[in-house]
């Protein structure tokens, strides 16, 4: 297990290194770093000073080292708009995004698995066909449009739920979250549902496919031949096997959620890092964009690593293979 984790950690570091190369050369080769990293409203003297401070007059390899050193120290430059370190800005907005992503992930599991199980166990029924057709809607519907519809339905016409902002937060168990207040919850519901929609569809399809595949496996027939009650066959034999792909995919989807929160946060004015990214893109606040990129890469790599480890715990075959190798 330790060998397994160390190997994955090393792979993760290589990915981070590669991505830093790509981001660095994206900034320096595709775009002009002076435009990208320096406030366009600065005067000539300030530009000179910043070029020297950023080391842009040095050879490219040295600049890359400089960039790496900056990352290592958490220094991505200052935001032109807010005048604060870009990293600090992003970290300030991170909790709101993670809260949104986690709640929507929870919604996907709680709603998706039972529906998918049902559709897989009774594939010929009308209800199952309806579930499957809706699941296609789930990830065919463009997130942004569904978001607009949710606002229109629940905020404008029904007036039940607020359409913008995060609402009140409170601190409970040392965690600040909107989950702990009614006001916060009411603000969270629509954006979380909006973000969850794709994944609800995905979980439904994964569970159904898993059930359909597993039902034809000999071990399910053997479990029935052992005379196990249906709830045990479904709850243990089936679930444990279909959870492997679901956990894997959902783990990876968590990264997608962070990325897709860009859309949801923009629509619902949710003060997370996705909204920060779009605002920075539109206002040409490049240091924040670069910082966002590197942070999201780090998050992704960390998530992939975690998923690998959880996967190996769930599926004993993977563990053995890695020990043997």
């Amino acid at each position, binding site marked *: 297990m330790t060998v397994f984790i160390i190997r994955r950690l090393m792979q993760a570091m290589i990915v981070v290194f590669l991505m830093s190369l790509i981001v660095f050369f994206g900034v320096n080769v595709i775009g002009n770093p002076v435009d990208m990293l320096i406030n366009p409203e600065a005067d000539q003297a300030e530009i000179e000073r910043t070029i020297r401070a950023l080391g842009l007059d040095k050879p490219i390899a040295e600049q890359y080292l400089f960039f790496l050193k900056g990352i290592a120290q958490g220094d991505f430059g200052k935001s032109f708009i807010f005048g604060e370190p870009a990293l600090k800005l992003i970290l300030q907005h991170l909790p709101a995004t993670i809260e949104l992503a986690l709640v929507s992930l929870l919604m996907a599991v709680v709603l998706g698995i039972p529906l998918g199980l049902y559709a897989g166990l009774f594939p010929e029924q009308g209800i199952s066909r309806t579930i499957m057709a809706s699941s296609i809607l789930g990830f*065919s519907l*463009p997130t942004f449009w569904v978001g607009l*519809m949710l606002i229109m339905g629940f905020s404008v016409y029904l007036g039940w739920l607020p359409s913008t902002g995060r609402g009140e937060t409170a601190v409970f168990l040392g965690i600040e979250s909107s989950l702990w207040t009614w006001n916060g919850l009411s603000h969270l519901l629509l954006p979380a549902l909006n973000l969850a929609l794709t994944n609800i569809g995905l979980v439904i399809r994964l569970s159904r496919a898993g059930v359909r595949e597993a039902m034809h496996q000999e071990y399910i027939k053997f479990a029935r031949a052992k005379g196990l009650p249906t709830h045990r066959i479904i709850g243990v034999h089936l679930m444990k096997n279909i959870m492997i792909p679901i956990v894997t995919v959902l783990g990876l989807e968590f990264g997608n959620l962070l990325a897709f929160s860009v859309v949801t946060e923009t629509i619902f004015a949710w003060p997370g890092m996705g909204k920060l990214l779009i605002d920075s893109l539109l206002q040409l606040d490049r240091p924040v964009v670069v910082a966002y990129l590197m942070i999201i890469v780090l998050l992704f790599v960390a998530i992939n690593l975690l998923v690998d480890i959880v996967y190996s715990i769930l599926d004993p075959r993977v563990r053995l293979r890695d020990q043997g190798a």
Partner: protein
Amino acid sequence: MTDQSLNPEDNTAAQAVLVETPFQRFVSEYADNKIAVVSLVVLVAIVVLAILAPWITPQNPYDLAQVSIMDAAQPPGTEAFDGYTMWLGSDGAGRDLYSAILYGIRISLMVGLASGLIALIIGTAIGLVAAYAGGRVDTLIMRAVDLQLSFPAALIALMLVAALGRGIDKIIIALVVAQWAYYARTVRATALVESAKEYVEAARCLGLSHGRVIFKHVLPNCLAPLIVIGTVQTASAIALESTLSFLGVGLRQTEPSLGVLISSGREYIISGRYWISIFPGIALLLTIVSINLVGDQLRDVLNPRLKK
């Protein structure tokens, strides 16, 4: 039925059971699912409407001379300044929504198909190279594919658009870069499976050239998975383009795809003028959903593993 029945050489046994040609069987199996048939009809209708747009709309929404600001944000059914009825209302710039939507579908479909096709060609080529070169080249390509696929296509497209700027050409580039890896992975996997099969070995032993083996034997077998991925990826390209346009980093206001139209209606929603966002949204929805449903049924029909 194994996947061998897809090879014309091997389906004598299948034909003994069912006296249908593979194509007839494909059609009858496809027609089994009523929803899929309806989706196909809807999709064809959308494409036809989009192609015929200049002849069946009362207004060319790009032609400023035909657009009157007097008609801005009128509800459905209002009579336009020029005398025709705007059945779906008009947008904030005074464009007839029905016309704008049909022209918008043209742009959305064009972007989706163009990026899908380019990504398919590039991805297929890279996938075949990986499968055939093997060794280090294969490892290198697949590492790159894995690396890219570990990031969501939406994020990659967003970053590229951030670096490249707005506009149709740049959006297509961004979508191609975001999607080629899906095709490459599929083609490589299929090509590896196919080239390990005995008939390819046999073809090689007969001294057929690599090119002939690839194009005559391997590629035709990649066709089924490519069609399936192609439909799904085209739908997602259309969705992605509209998302980027909605966020204001995609197409410009002068290239009004469905996403741009929906975005322009956003500010009117709070005041209850729903139609500017809703109708283009429904058009977008029908397009994407019908492509996905068609793709879904294609996968069920073409995937030999699920066949009994």
